[in-house]
């Protein structure tokens, strides 16, 4: 038996890259890039260690209005693949979006089905969503040619994908956390009032991720270890 505790963190950043995110996207990108260093620095301060951290990115817009409504990356190992991760983040540009609700629920569906690590004595699987918009109902754009196969049929099915203490089809209940930086609007508020292990920081359109909120998220991740 290995005598060392291994602590592995996988993070999935879901970033709304529609036009309205223009004023805040650079701050979101800056936060995403500095996340690894900020978490490890805080862990060291608490005399704790992190063995393995991976991050993937999902960029979402609107299946009805956009040419590239959903883009996903693989997991990047940090710090080894920090350069590639940074290039990925820096390639995100805020544009498109059409009407105000975006397709954030489909982004969450992709995030939940991430290839989460099964290694490590302790694990955290964290999804962070940055958006200033409400979402369409899941499947709103299912007639669109680019709409993917295999998406949950409705909110009920997506809720089952997220799971609970007795049902964990894709993501371990003890490991999972969902951090929403999203407005108190459909379907984010329904998620907060239905799913477990969610922390919602209500955002206001046009305002970025407040510094204290970002620190709170880093703190919360380090304290949950």
């Amino acid at each position: 038996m290995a005598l060392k505790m291994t602590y592995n963190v996988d993070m999935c950043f879901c970033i709304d890259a529609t036009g309205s995110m223009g004023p805040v996207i650079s701050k979101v990108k800056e936060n995403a890039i500095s996340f690894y260093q900020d978490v490890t620095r805080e862990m060291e301060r608490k005399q704790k260690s992190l063995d393995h951290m991976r991050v993937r990115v999902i960029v979402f817009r609107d299946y009805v209005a956009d040419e590239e409504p959903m883009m996903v990356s693989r997991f990047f190992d940090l710090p080894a693949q920090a350069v590639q991760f940074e290039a990925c983040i820096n390639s995100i540009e805020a544009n498109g979006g059409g009407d105000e609700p975006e397709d954030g629920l489909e982004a969450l569906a992709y995030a939940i089905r991430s290839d989460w690590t099964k290694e490590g004595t302790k694990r955290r699987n964290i999804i962070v969503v940055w958006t200033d918009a409400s979402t369409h109902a899941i499947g709103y754009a299912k007639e669109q040619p680019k709409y993917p196969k295999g998406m949950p049929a409705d909110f009920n099915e997506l809720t089952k994908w997220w799971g609970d203490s007795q049902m964990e089809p894709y993501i371990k209940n003890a490991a999972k956390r969902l951090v929403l930086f999203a407005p108190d609007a459909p379907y984010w508020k329904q998620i907060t009032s239905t799913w477990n292990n969610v922390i919602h920081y209500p955002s206001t359109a046009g305002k970025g991720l407040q510094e204290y909120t970002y620190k709170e998220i880093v703190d919360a991740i380090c304290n949950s270890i």
Partner: protein
Amino acid sequence: MREINGYQLETELKTTNSGFSKWGFARKNNRSYFIKELIDPVYPVYEDLLDPATLAHKRKICQMFEDHNRLLYQCINNSSDGNLVHIEDFFRHGSHYYMVMEKVDAISLEEVRRITNEDKLRICKALVHCLGKLHQNGIVHADIKLDNILFRRLPSGKVTGKVIDFDNCFWEKQPPSPDEEIHGDLVYMAPETFVMMQMEEGTITRAIDVFALGILFHQIFTGRPPGFDASKFDYPFEAVLGGERLIVSPEIPDEWRQLIDRMLAGIPEKRIDLSEAEALLRGKSTKTEYGGQAAYLIPAGDL
């Protein structure tokens, strides 16, 4: 500012220094309270979004949680001699559960470091006593650490400590199953907790609190955890499992050094029980050399 079930929030709930639950301060009937929003389970309130089976499934989880925790919190309150923070209220408001506790005006850790040895001894004795009471009532705290002790100055000027945060508590007769992730701080983790997590077999008992308390006492006396080879290991439990004996600092008074050493025993069965620790601190032992509980018995001599 928001009101939650009659509690007027003084500050918006935040996750600062918390492992993902939100907390803040609130007032009700001219008293201030500490209020905490729990993130698991969540009671589904949007009935039209879930099918009847999913809704019933989630509400059943909530009911089980509510029944379990109501009984647990009642028993914690009954165990308290004043050194376990009092749980004033537990309720569901909308989709979330909340715990309300007495507000303790704590002194800073900087100030704690400067307290007298007499205060340190009194705090440690009080912690042995109150956790011992919790154990007698069949409850394991499971998250003993410096952050979960609030130190406060009494009107007399003396300092005392109160145990907070009962999120990880469990009934010793119903321990977490081996495949469950055990929450709790790695610095204070008992070796058997790690073994259970790694091997997905075995069990944990009140002895995990004793190990954590040993680490905590060492910090109270010296400002740091007990010593081990930090070039080989990250945490005390790793050093113990690696065959090291944790080094208890000679700065600590003799009686307490020996006690802390016994609290940090690698094998849970060999770790001192808090009832025995309390008796030792009072100057009498109820335990015989061979380790069994003795009442009116002495070791038999030659015939």
